[in-house]
């Protein structure tokens, strides 16, 4: 009897100890703040809750950075963090914000569209919580999040997800997937509300071109691709051809009408914006990779996947020539040049919407790596340092 009691007490103690250690890690991840030193062309910071007050003081509220040239022209929205388990889009947004120069029109950046999803890792997939970027002045830490909204902010899931307004049935957990919830609902779930707020923001600000950045597994056919709404097909097709001829391979696909809830479909259908989604290659999120390490996330090098590459089973280059790798700087650079190119062709096709803005290119990222474009918050003008 006494032995049993001791055993029970021991179990309680071990459970409590494990819960405490893990709890501290979960708490740190949920409240970790990423820092950005915005460029001199920064104008103001807004919040998504400015367009949807119901989001205020929730983990779904997220900052919108505005870079307005003051010269009349078009407008562009650059989105990262729709799926925070794909970190290159958010990092590309940070690099863009720290270095952007705007000569005409206005550029809006939402670095973490689904902020709630940045506050935890992917359950059952053993994701590391953070990655660091080396700079000349030290290391800068960023979060690796989830694909879907944190269940602490939106729970439970239904047994199936019915998309609004199409009524298309989708996988149950897509109820928390921002890129299945557009155009969104004001009186819907938290994720649907975020989608509604972003759609409302695009509509209200009359944004001409909206770019949603993602990463895809290399065994997924739609990788290294622009997916464009019908009205954005011309500019995306020209951009893809131009990039493929001059810089890196880029494919183009038209947004399918039968798949609902995506940015490339619903932004274009429910607002006047030209909707484009970009995918880079991220081996880390492939299904058949080895240990889930930060190194794999940063370099994209994996032995198991190299066998698939050798067998021609990947849709993005993965062979000896690229050292079986898709490093972070390449992925970030592709997004930045991919965005520049669609803006360029929007300017060509629609001169009245012209936006002239510049930021580091693919070639510069490949040559100098990401850290070269990140500034030290400690030594920067505090007015241009934001943590969120």
């Amino acid at each position, binding site marked *: 009897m006494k032995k049993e009691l001791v055993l029970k007490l021991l179990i309680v103690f071990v459970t409590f100890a*494990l*819960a405490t*250690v*893990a709890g501290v*890690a979960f708490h740190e991840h949920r409240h970790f703040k990423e820092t950005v030193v915005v460029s001199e062309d920064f104008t103001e910071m807004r919040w998504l809750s400015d367009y949807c007050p119901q989001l205020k003081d929730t983990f779904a509220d997220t900052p919108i950075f505005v870079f307005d040239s003051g010269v009349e022209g078009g407008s562009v929205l650059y989105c990262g963090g729709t799926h925070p388990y794909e970190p290159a889009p958010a990092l590309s947004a940070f690099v863009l914000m720290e270095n952007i120069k705007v000569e005409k029109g206005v550029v809006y950046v939402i670095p973490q569209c689904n902020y709630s999803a940045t506050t935890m*890792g992917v*359950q*059952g*997939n*053993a994701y*590391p*919580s953070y990655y660091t970027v080396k700079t000349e002045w030290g290391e800068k830490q960023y979060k690796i999040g989830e694909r879907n909204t944190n269940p602490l902010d939106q*729970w*439970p*899931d*239904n*047994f*199936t997800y*019915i998309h*609004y*307004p199409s*009524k*298309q*049935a*989708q*996988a*149950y*957990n*897509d*109820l928390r*997937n921002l890129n299945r919830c557009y155009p969104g*609902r004001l009186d*819907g*779930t938290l994720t649907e509300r975020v989608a509604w707020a972003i759609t409302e923001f695009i509509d209200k600000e009359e944004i001409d071109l909206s770019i949603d950045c993602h990463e895809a597994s290399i*065994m*997924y*056919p*739609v990788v290294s691709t622009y997916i464009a709404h019908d009205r954005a097909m011309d500019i995306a097709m020209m951009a893809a051809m131009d990039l493929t001829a001059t810089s890196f391979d880029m494919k183009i696909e038209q947004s*399918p009408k*039968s*798949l609902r809830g995506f940015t490339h479909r619903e932004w274009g259908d429910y607002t006047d914006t030209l909707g484009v989604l970009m995918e880079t290659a991220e081996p880390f999120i492939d*299904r*058949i*990779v*080895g*240990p*889930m*390490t930060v*190194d794999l996330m940063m370099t994209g*090098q*994996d*032995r*198991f*996947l*190299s*066998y*698939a590459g050798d*067998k021609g*089973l990947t849709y993005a280059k993965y062979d000896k020539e690229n050292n*079986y790798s898709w490093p972070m700087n390449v992925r970030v650079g592709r997004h930045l040049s991919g965005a520049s190119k669609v803006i360029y062709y929007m300017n060509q096709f629609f001169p009245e919407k012209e936006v002239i803005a510049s930021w580091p290119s693919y070639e510069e990222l490949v040559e100098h790596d990401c850290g070269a474009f990140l500034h030290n918050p400690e030594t920067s003008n505090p007015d241009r340092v934001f943590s969120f």
Partner: protein
Amino acid sequence: MDYTVLEVVIIFVAMAATFVLGSKYLKSTEISMALAGVVAIIFSTLHGWTTTPVKLLVEGLFTNMDLAMTFICATIFINIYSSSGAMTTITRNIVERINNKWLILICMGILMLIPGAITGAGSVSVFVLGTLVYSIVRFMGVSEKKATAFVFMFAIFSAACPPINLWTMLMTAQANMPYVGFELLLLLPIIIAGAFTILYCGWGSKRAPKEEILATLPEVNAKMYGFGGLVRVLLPLLTLVVLFVLTLVIPFSMPVLGLPLMFIICTVVAILCNPNKTSVKEYAKVISDTMEQVFPLVATVLSVGIMQNAMAASGVKGLIGTAFVLLPFVWIYALILIVGPFAQGSMSYGSAVVIGTPLIFMFNTAGMNVTVVCAALSLIFPIGDCLPPSRIVGRLVLEATDYKDTYTSFLKQIFVPCLVFGLLALIMLIKPAWFTFLA
């Protein structure tokens, strides 16, 4: 690439050995699975692949928490519902009113399909109807083992049955395919395999005389008869069906309840419909007994979560996936009926993501109709719900039917209908073009 294939293979072997030894000496599948996960996490930490082993362990524990909550709430509902005598009343009515054995078996099969088809979970079919269907099938003269096989087979058919097939939904979500055109592709093989299962289980059995069956059933409260009784019996089940249907039909007007709360609401309705004078203490005992009953299963799904996280952290998940998807097509055809179900047994719905999605892309590259391929895979994975280490639906069925023999004898009993079901799916996988007209 800071690992070698051999290192990951060693971890895989260590996990398997821990599981086998743990099962043998600790007599607990759940603790053995958790220990296997801990071993993999320790290896990963020693290799420097992870710096947060405790976080991985606890995070894994929460991976299937929703499933565990559904199991608990569903079992509480069904036990409270049964304690009112409602199950016995339904059984009495069916035995009294329907005389044809085959008709009863068909009705029971269709009945079993409904909860799983609506929710996508075969476990819900077992919770709601498993015991009832089992007892009625037994009264049709079907042996204990075959009646258990009947319940299990229709539970996995219900999970695979449209409109909600979670494996298909997960694969289509991963592959950005619309969840459209799957109804007939999923339904037709289920009808064929279901008909076979009814024949397989019912062949040679002889229904006992009606009076004899009724005499063995316990008496129920007189208030369970007549129109009032009908309302008392059907209302809790109807509440569940109405909640399911409303979620699908008016999704934008319905709040998101989730399965656990749906079952709790039905439990309240069942308590209100109970004609017996049941005290709060007695209800508390039913709930307490339910927790005892469902505890091993909850422990299983939580341990599976630990293992899933550990397999990802250590690369074992990638090893299994790579080893299979790199095979030539002919080997995939030869092994899918083994690998698919065992992947389900170890990774639960993760099988669709780890094995299913890469296969869809491969078949797509080969120019095959991926809708048919996806449907075929979605029929294969559910078979693994009886396989170790998790054995989730298999164990549930054994509990619902109070199965006395060994687990191996249960597996032997379901082998033939599972094989028929698997072969139907395999034909679809090998010759998708033949089935394109169903898409």
